[in-house]
């Protein structure tokens, strides 16, 4: 608190730019450092990208509805599935998890914000602008078309002369910066800003999974960055990393990409596991079964996630020894994953299960994740993978894990936390109706794809022949998009309606267990009027039902005034946005080899960093207890 007080006040005038103060209007959103606002921005942005990726998927399914259709050309088709995959992984599902982490990690650990609020804003803006950068490719000569894992040498200048691949490489390069800084921010926050009494082993599992994920990001993104950099160098400066004619080894890209790419899958799924581990206990009214085992298995999955990358490369001719090794490590991941499933079932066992929308989504997650996990074990068998790899069987598998798994889990989270985010309650009936469309549609789309794959349909083909037995599976699959699309549109309409005219939700509509439910809905800018104290796991539940909690530890904090000097709210800042914008524009400079522009933007980056460093944290203090109305200091 002393830190905040020292830099409040006159330091605002020392910066290059006038420090913004407004709490409404566009400028207030561009300059916000509030983790809740940034969390909402993350969710809305990733939701937008989710919609774009869904539209791309819809066109793909229309093209494949019947054999030998020419609705889109092979060229456009390649762009569509590349952008669909890239968007879903990098711009939609992963940032949706980051959005939840941004909004709820501080609330769940009883903190007032992330450790570095301006860095948090920077992380968001560089992600959003990185995504925008990639999407401008549609208007600037064509989107990337080499698949979301962009295998070399398909990406070399001679094989792919347009700018599409540059958009991919530079866009991911830019977006990756945001992912990395946000991961570091979350680690520091979780390690150093937990409420009094909240030991590591009292943290909500969602927070644990975010922590594990953040560490994964720090180890997984550097290999990707190196690989992207190599290709940017190849394409822009004529180096020869991936030029076979000069002796380049294309397989290197696959290793580097998947050393990142497989952990990336767990970077997406572990926060989803975390959400499920919050939703199931709440709606079963029981603590999570086997809390330490759940955390350990999460850590184990994360660790092993770095030891399985070559199972994406079983058909590249690594030889039987390497294939055996990577097959066995992949099988081993099935064990902690199975343990997690058992523990979720164990949580429900003996509970009092309420089938509200979040819980129904969580159960659908369980169902589909088990199916996706089983096909995952099948694909970890290299001989079967030799048949199924690069076919629609794989497409079905990873959609069950990423869509039916991660996305449904995040939907569970969205419905679970919607009352907290907005203070409004949605219509459970409407949401359940939307759920059934989404769930049935999803399975209509992806279950038949297993069979299309086994019948010999490769992925990434723009069309297929009649007479191979593929027609019915593709037709059902395409029909499913209409069903699922209806469900998704209903969900969006339901959210909009609830946001506008939903009933007040109250602070704790689900009788939940963790600290975010102890404050008002939506939470005040400073999150908690009074510093929460954790006396047990499920800290809020322990406070509500002290008789059922473990012990009344935490008495040592009784009577301690944690907010004696008021609550410091950091000042808003233009610099994170400005810095991101400069990197964004500089990206075009590098891509078009427009060096004056790139250098100019480099100067802006340096200047923004300077301004950022010297403007100080700024801000002001609020004293919620001493003022009559909540959040009076805002």
């Amino acid at each position: 608190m002393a830190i905040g007080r020292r830099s409040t006040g006159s330091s605002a005038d020392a910066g290059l730019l006038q420090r913004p103060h407004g709490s409404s209007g566009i400028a207030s959103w561009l300059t916000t450092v509030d983790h809740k606002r940034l969390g909402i921005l993350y969710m809305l942005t990733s939701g937008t990208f989710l919609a774009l990726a869904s539209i791309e998927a819809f066109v793909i399914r229309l093209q494949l509805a019947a054999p030998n259709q020419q609705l889109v050309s092979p060229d456009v088709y390649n762009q569509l599935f590349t952008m669909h995959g890239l968007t879903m992984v990098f711009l939609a599902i992963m940032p949706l998890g980051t959005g939840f982490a941004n909004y709820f990690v501080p609330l769940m650990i009883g903190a007032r914000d992330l450790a570095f609020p301006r860095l948090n804003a920077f992380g968001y803006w560089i992600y959003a602008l990185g995504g925008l950068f990639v999407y401008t490719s549609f208007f600037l000569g064509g989107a990337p078309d080499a698949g979301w894992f962009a295998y070399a040498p398909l990406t070399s200048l001679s094989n792919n002369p347009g700018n599409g691949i540059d958009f991919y490489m530079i866009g991911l390069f830019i977006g990756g910066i945001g992912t990395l800084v946000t991961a570091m921010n979350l680690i520091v926050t979780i390690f150093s800003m937990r409420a009094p009494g909240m030991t590591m082993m009292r943290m909500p599992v969602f927070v644990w999974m975010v922590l594990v994920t953040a560490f994964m990001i720090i180890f997984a993104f550097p290999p990707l960055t190196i690989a992207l950099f190599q290709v940017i160098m190849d394409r822009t400066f004529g180096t020869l990393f991936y030029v076979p004619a000069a002796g380049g080894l294309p397989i290197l890209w696959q290793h580097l990409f998947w050393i990142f790419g497989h952990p990336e899958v767990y970077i997406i799924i572990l926060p989803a596991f975390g959400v499920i581990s919050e939703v199931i206990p709440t709606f079963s009214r029981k603590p999570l079964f086997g809390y330490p085992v759940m955390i350990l298995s999460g850590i184990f999955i994360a660790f092993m996630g770095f030891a399985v990358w070559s199972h994406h490369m079983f058909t590249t001719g690594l030889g039987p020894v390497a294939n055996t090794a990577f097959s066995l490590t992949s099988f081993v991941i099935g064990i902690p994953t199975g343990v997690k499933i058992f523990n979720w079932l164990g949580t429900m066992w003996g509970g009092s299960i309420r089938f509200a929308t979040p819980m129904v989504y969580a159960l659908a997650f369980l169902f589909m994740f088990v199916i996706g996990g089983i096909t995952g074990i099948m694909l970890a068998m290299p001989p079967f993978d030799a048949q199924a790899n690069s076919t629609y069987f794989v497409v079905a598998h990873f959609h069950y894990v990423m869509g039916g798994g991660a996305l449904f889990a995040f939907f569970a989270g969205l419905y679970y936390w919607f009352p907290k985010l907005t203070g409004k309650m949605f219509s459970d009936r409407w949401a359940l109706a939307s759920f059934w469309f989404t769930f049935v549609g999803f399975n209509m789309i992806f279950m038949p794809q297993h069979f299309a794959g086994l019948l010999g349909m490769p992925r990434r083909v723009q069309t297929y022949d009649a007479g191979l037995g593929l027609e019915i599976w593709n037709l059902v699959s395409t029909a499913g998009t209409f069903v699922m699309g209806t469900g998704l549109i209903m969900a969006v309409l339901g959210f909009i309606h609830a946001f506008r005219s939903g009933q007040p939700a109250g602070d704790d509509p689900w009788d939940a267990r963790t600290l975010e439910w102890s404050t008002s809905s939506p939470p005040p800018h400073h999150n908690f009027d009074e510093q929460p104290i954790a006396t047990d796991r499920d800290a809020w539940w322990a406070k509500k039902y002290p008789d059922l909690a473990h012990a009344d530890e935490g008495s040592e904090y009784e009577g301690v005034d944690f907010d004696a000097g008021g609550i410091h709210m950091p000042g808003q800042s233009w610099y994170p946005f400005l810095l991101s914008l400069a990197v964004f524009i500089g990206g075009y400079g590098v891509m078009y080899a427009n060096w004056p522009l790139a250098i100019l933007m480099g100067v802006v980056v340096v200047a923004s960093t300077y301004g950022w460093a010297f403007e100080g944290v700024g801000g002001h203090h609020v004293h919620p207890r001493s003022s009559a109305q909540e959040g009076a200091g805002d």
Partner: protein
Amino acid sequence: MPMTQWLRRAAFLAGGMLLLAGCEFTGLQSTLDPAGPIAQAQLDLLVWSYQLSWIVMIATFGVMAYVLIRFRRRRNDPDRIPPQFHGSAPLEIGLTIVPVLIVIAVAVPTVRTIFATETRVAPEAGDVIVNVTGYQWWWRFEYPELGVVTANELHIPAGRRVILNLDSADVLHSFWVPRLAGKRDLIPNQNNQLWIEAPDPGMYYGQCAELCLGAHAYMKFRVIAETDAEFEAWVDTFQTVDSRAVQGDPEVQRGYQLFTSKGCANCHAVQGYRDGAPIGTPDFPNLTNFGLRNTLAAGVLPNDRENLEAWLRDPQAIKPGNYMPQLWQENDPNADEEIAAVASYLLSLGTQSSPEAQASLGGSHGDR
């Protein structure tokens, strides 16, 4: 073991009835209809894991259904707070052992099959060796010991092991004949190997299974397994080939000339087209004995006069994205006549130019 067999059948039937009701799985490109030892071993592994997966699913979803019904929140007691138990170490350990056992049950046959199907083999007497090169968007098949170069149709003798040396001339491709063997990638600068064996004569469908842009979806091929005698005869047609047009058929003669004058010969090699300087380059499909081919445009269409003429007229309409230029403008008054002549010439290759070889093939060489 009748018991295990019965179990297998029951498991397959149960699965079949639930999911696969009424559907045919013996497609031309189906991994579920194996015709060679590798594809069979790969399918066996799938079947084994599929049976195990039904046990897992029935157990998991059974418990889940039980829990959801038994422990649902009751209307008459909505506020009940169940006992807040946190876990049970013996149960956790027990439940960890279950997935360990399942994993072991899958891993043992997996490792065995990996070494049986993926170990690099040394050629032995009786093996046929083929150098396979992937191009955007066709396949070059070279038989180094037999002096044969052809494209998109791989002839092999049934019952003999065929060793494929896989290479790519441009980007990544993947050699996949589902009924014979799972795929293996073609990677520039990487010497990959795959062996296949077809016990019975027949035609097996293959397709490129690694994105190579452009006409990737149309990069197909066929593997044609023949009896030893048929295979030898096919090889002979290459060794005795004379691709000069048969005298006495003016249309074929005209096609022969157009083949050079329209520029076909700039890219496409045809063995024995003329004495001295050979035509074409190795980087485009070799058309020697083209008349014997079952398909054209890399397995896209059956090779008959109508399709061939359509292909020559507008290659992009048949195989979008491919590199074959359109040689006749739409308003070219001579187009019909010239296209027919070139088609006649191409179809004559291997069927008319070398009557002896034609006779030894014993007539039709159609779809088996």
